[in-house]
């Protein structure tokens, strides 16, 4: 495998070059310079072009300099843990309205403590339930922030 294919700089540079090209292509549909002065496309055109140039420089650096960006090769075990946490966070958001804040947040807390950190289920449940109750009391009741109640709607509205 080519050495640069393992570098984060190479892939992130390519992605950003593509993104910059998208910005420029989109900005071309808007007015660049009108009678009153610069239009909606003026600013995005310039920073989009700068993005393309800079990201290509990054790609070139990753390809031409053998040592550059070696430290940025991604450790997959760390990545897997971080992404698992992120997926749990997204699931919590997806269930936010259906389950209500307390249940969704308690589930996320339990998942992080019991599954990701391997702590006992008892400890995880204790922190999850305690944390959700404290959040509901502090934000829902003291600060009067409207959080989705889910199945507890009737209970919390009393």
């Amino acid at each position, binding site marked *: 495998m080519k050495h640069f294919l393992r570098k984060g700089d190479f892939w992130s540079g390519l992605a950003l070059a593509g993104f910059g090209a998208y910005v420029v292509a989109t900005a071309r549909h808007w007015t660049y310079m009108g009678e009153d002065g610069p239009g909606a496309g003026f600013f995005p055109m310039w920073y989009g072009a700068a993005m393309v140039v800079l990201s290509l420089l990054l790609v070139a650096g990753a390809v031409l300099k053998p040592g550059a960006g070696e430290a940025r090769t991604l450790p997959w075990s760390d990545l897997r843990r971080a992404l698992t946490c*992120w997926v749990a966070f997204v699931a919590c958001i997806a269930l936010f309205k259906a389950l209500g804040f307390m249940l969704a947040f308690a589930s996320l807390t339990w998942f992080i403590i019991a599954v990701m950190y391997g702590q006992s289920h008892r400890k995880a449940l204790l922190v999850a339930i305690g944390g959700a109750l404290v959040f509901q009391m502090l934000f829902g009741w003291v600060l009067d922030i409207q959080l989705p109640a889910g199945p507890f709607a009737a209970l919390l509205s009393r």
Partner: protein
Amino acid sequence: MDPIAGLMHGFAVALTPANLMMCVAGTFLGTVIGVLPGLGPAATIAMLLPLTMKLDPTGAMIMLAGIYYGAKYGGSTTSILLNVPGESASIVTCLDGYQMARKGRAGAALGMAAIASFIAGTVGVIALMLIAPPLAQLSLAFSAPEYFALMVLGLAMVVLLAGESLTKALLAMLIGLWIATIGTDLFSATSRFTFGQSALLGGIDFVIVAIGVFAVGEVMANMEPTTAPDVLPVPKGLRNLLPTWEDMRRCRFAFVNGSIVGFIIGVLPGAGGTISSFVSYGIEKAVSRHPEKFGTGVIEGVAAPEGANNADTAGALVPLLTLGIPGGSSTAILLAALVLWGFKPGPLFIQESPALFWGLVASMYIGNVVLLLMNIPLVPVFARLLKIPGYAMYPLVLGVSLVGVYSDGNSLFELGLLAGFGLLGYAMRKLGYPAAPLLLGLVLGDAMEKALRQSLMMSQGDVAILYRPIPAALLVVAAVLLAVPLFKKFNDVRVRMIDQEV
């Protein structure tokens, strides 16, 4: 309003029971955040910002500023007891502070850190009070071209000192500019980069990006399992937490050095507390009669950097409040907070919002006293926070992030954006893209585009309007700064400064 009258007015505002409580709450929370490694003041201010929207803006600003400067006090505790900086600006304190603790002088080091922070923090507030009003007066002469050039210079400085790779820092800033462009263009009513989503017509709320990149991204980056830290003991009894008169005498110059260097570097965008503490430590070592002892546990090595990183916070508020230019992530979030509350930080800010400006200045005097009184006797309590495991902290951070964003717009779409920006923040950390330029690009992007377009409208599209003396000078300085990495000698110094920060 002259400074003395202004300050009196400020104390009348800051000493109301509600504002006093906000000041104590902010400084306490700041200290706690400073003590805990991983979670910085920028993430905390971002998370709490939406929750302060229902509060009185002056009280809320006093609290958020308290978190900002309080974190600098708390950071030293972790540096001294754990040899890990609780806050990036306290990294230099590890060098001598931890060595002092190992020799059984943890109490003196912790006490000196609090005293130096108090002295330099207070000197910094005095300088802020004296310098901000005349600077604001001076900048009244600025119009769109000058502002555009000033923002370019601010961004150039932040980019220069943000990351080892200038290219990546610039790219991060450009992503920030792109996010700032999302929504309806106010000049032409054109929808830009909205992907057909009506929820994006008003743009993306700065708070969502800040919380996502800093708080959620930080939690994801800290997901690796860690072992329990080995915390050195805090001596019992208040007397053992106070430095001796001999220690105080030895630190005389360090107090002056930290105050002046910290404030001056704080005023410069991008430099920040870490660099000011390194510079003041370097000066202290250079003028010392025993430079060889630095790093082995000398008390001046604690006093100088701790003083500098606290004077820096007052310095950083000068460009923020008088020009509307933030110098780093925390001040960028404070700027966003002021804008969200309907204030316009800039040359007219002091005239238009005297209660907020002088109330904030007065609260910083009070806050420094509160921090001194709180930090010395409560150090053992704060030290116990270091034993809280990460797995108990991370759900808390994610929960506050969720509530913060949801309370702002009651929108699941915005929570989805939060998750997206969290992923972006994590990817940036892992790939070595600094987050500060993204945030600065985002917070300044809109104003920068507006200033540029207004300038070109004034000149009917002729860029020569930017060749007027002030904008031309500012743009030349920005260009020179961005050219620094091309010169090996200068770039080595730049990279060394950033490496130390990392």
